[in-house]
């Protein structure tokens, strides 16, 4: 590995500005990840051609791949910049903002739709109130727990949506993240009491049937969440629900 790492970064000053590319070089060190490299660039924002420019804006927080903030396209693939080590990447390393969300500036995008969709599919359990009712939830077997735990690690990073051919700014599909949340809530012993409402929320336009089964989502999920398994399970749940609706049996 050479002692300089070259980055090509797609830039955009405001949501309404044109995009342009700039190249930066940073010194290599062992264990260098993309966020650290971006930190070096912001400290000394000079392009490879020696031009002084505005620092590159991007989003990051935990730096240990648990907050989901620093998702971006790294060599055209959605990844968490903090846990992507530069020595695993082909140079020059291309950084771009996620393409499925409106750009705020440079590598920052507006992912508010992701959270709005969690609202749309009612990804919560209806509790009487956040006070002590002197009992917990029913028991859950370790196997059942293990299945659910996989889904509960979704950090709303948006990688699955970026990779999905059906997900786009002008299309209504909610995408794998929200569907997996429905799967998780529906499998909780009391969360299943609102199973019907959640299923109805994903049975209409932009719901489950908009999934084109490309299976890209599961390949890019940084948390290895079995998203396609969730979608398969929901397929069976919605079919049953449809029959119940037709027969009027609730």
């Amino acid at each position, binding site marked *: 590995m050479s002692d300089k790492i070259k980055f090509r970064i797609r830039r955009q*000053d*405001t949501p309404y500005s044109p995009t342009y590319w700039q190249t930066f070089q940073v010194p290599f060190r062992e*264990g*260098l*990840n993309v966020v*650290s490299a971006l930190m070096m660039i*912001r*400290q000394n*924002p000079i392009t490879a051609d020696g031009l002084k420019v*505005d*620092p590159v*804006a991007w*989003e990051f*927080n*935990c*730096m*240990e*791949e*648990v*907050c*989901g*903030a620093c998702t971006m396209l790294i060599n055209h693939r959605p990844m968490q910049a903090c*846990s992507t*080590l530069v020595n695993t990447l082909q140079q020059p390393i291309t950084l771009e903002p996620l393409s499925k969300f409106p750009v*705020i*500036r440079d590598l*920052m995008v507006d*992912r*508010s739709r992701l*959270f709005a969709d*969690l*609202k749309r599919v*009612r*990804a*919560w*359990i*209806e*509790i009487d*109130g*956040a*006070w*002590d*009712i*002197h009992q*917990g*939830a029913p*028991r*859950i*077997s*370790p196997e059942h*727990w*293990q299945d659910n*735990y996989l889904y*509960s*690690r979704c*950090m*709303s990073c948006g990688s699955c949506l970026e990779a999905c051919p059906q997900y786009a700014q002008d299309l209504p599909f909610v995408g794998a993240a929200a569907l997996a949340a429905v799967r*998780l*809530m529906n499998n909780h012993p009391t*969360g299943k009491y609102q199973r019907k409402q959640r299923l109805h929320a994903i049975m209409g336009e932009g719901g489950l049937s908009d999934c084109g089964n490309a299976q890209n989502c599961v390949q890019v999920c940084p948390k290895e969440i079995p998203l396609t398994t969730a979608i398969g399970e929901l397929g069976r749940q919605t079919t049953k629900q449809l029959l119940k609706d037709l027969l009027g049996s609730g």
Partner: protein
Amino acid sequence: MSRPRKVIVVGGGLGGLWAALRLAEAGFQVQIFSLFEVKRSHSVCAQGGINACFDSKGERDTIWQHIVDTLKGGAYLANQPPVKSMCEDAPGLIQTFERMGVTFSRTAEGLLDLRLFGGVKHRRTLFAGASTGQQLLYGVDQEVRRQESLGRLQKFEWWEFLSLGLNQQGACQGIIAMNLRTMEIKAFPSDAVILASGGMGQVYGHRSTNSTNSTGAAACRVYQQGAWLANTEFFQFHPTAMLGDDKTRLMSEAARGEGGRIWVPSDANDRRRPSQIPEPDRFYFLEEWYPSYGNTVPRDLASRAIWEVVHKLGLGVGGEAKVYLDLTHLNPGFIEQRLHAILDIYRKFHGTDPVHEPMEIYPSAHYAMGGLWVDFERDDTTGGIKHGSPRNHATNIPGLYACGECDYGYHGANRLGANSLLSASYSGRVAGESVANYLQGLQQGHPGSEDPIYSNEIKHQQELNHQLINNQGEENPYQLHRELGELMSSQVGVVRDNQTLNNAIESLRTLQQRSRNINLQEHNSWSNQGLAYARQLQEMIRLGEVIAASALHRDECRGAHYKPEFELKLPENASAGDPAYETYRSQWKAQNQNWLKTTIAKHTDWGPQVDYQAVDLSVLAPEEPRDYR
């Protein structure tokens, strides 16, 4: 009353979301302000678990023991009624989380499983794999989203809190905040404000386990408006953090709770790979020095022991400042199931597999036991806090409350592992209930947004921005932050002395000067991250000075605050009843006479003014010194 009273919550981690949830449920208008989407708050970084007495492991654990462990672990510096109530309410709080759908790990019978943590002898820590904080935050986040969908709560994400709107009587009536995209500064009137802005680990820069947004800036801003900061000299260094140039990543205490062992080669010149070093050539120093607690001593002791092994005995691995945290003797399937999240972090960032090779770790700045001073009302009939009292979690500014890591409430001089998720959640819930009662008692609502208490403050904040944007100095804010981190960790770190602390304060003042002479190198006025960062940097340097000044004034060793010059050493080979131990006990009590008191730092134009306040010791009299041997 024409419309419900309005509350602003600053911060959307566990503390802030709990407070917001309780207030929304109680029918108040709630607005949450956060620097980013609340789901990405630093609470997600907590790994190992949350403490509550369930006594389901046949160990006769009791709530009383949880109280005693917490108070003693904190070297008796915490006010005791709030700790008592927190431990009593912990099991009910966990059950509420369970109802929210939090994926707690299970026993074969499907019950909540428990693991061992530091500073205790009973299994009392509930967990969700090794991503407990993430799961707990998501549980409350979902409920908050439900309230949002019902129109009872509004989120203002990508807004930065800048200051309070204070009326002529000094009461808090809203906030001034900056939109982090447009950089517009605006007033948001409200009837009360809850600050839940989290920790301040970034004061230690890249030598901290904290997220980059945990700067403490919000707390420092209200400090400058008159709120007191308490016990800031007590900063926890987590013994087991990964090394790193950009960040030191936490390796949960659960690693030791599940059987992990800490060691170094006995011979400083031993350069063999760890797997090739046989047992007799390894020095398991925690097990040797603390035979009864071993690897799960409280964090302050573990961090100090590692410091001693590295710096005094010169036994750091390969001559460097690091020791081994070893899981390789444990069943790989077992640790994968229990610790997957941290194993994954280590593999991704370090490139080796902790299942096969010991991890390399060193202590790192992790948690502020100190923070904004908050009140409580004691209930003499129970010895705990008076539930619902509007005094609970109130700062000294009327109408301003604080909860979560930004307050100083529950941990005294040292926090026990897995008590932070508990205090964050519990204090958020208490603060929410307390504010609800404060609002009910309010005679008059906040003024309109045109009132001078807001417009004057907006003008002031705009001027601060203007100065920074137009300054053409030589200093680079990112460079200054690195220097701050180095300075704080080397001079206001695990081991302290007064000469060095005096120097540190001088250096911090120089840094503060330099931070006014910066150049943002930024021409784009949209989403100007450098501006927000430079402003936070100035607050961090100021907090550094509060920490250093508080540390300078306290001439003793207590919990995480360690000044060897004033150390009372436990007599070797002596236990309670032995004359040597009893002499020690009376010296320790004499020391408590002088120093068992809360540090209060008040802002003045010439630096922090340090005062003290008595600690409420009504639950457990300090008769037994800490002794984890």
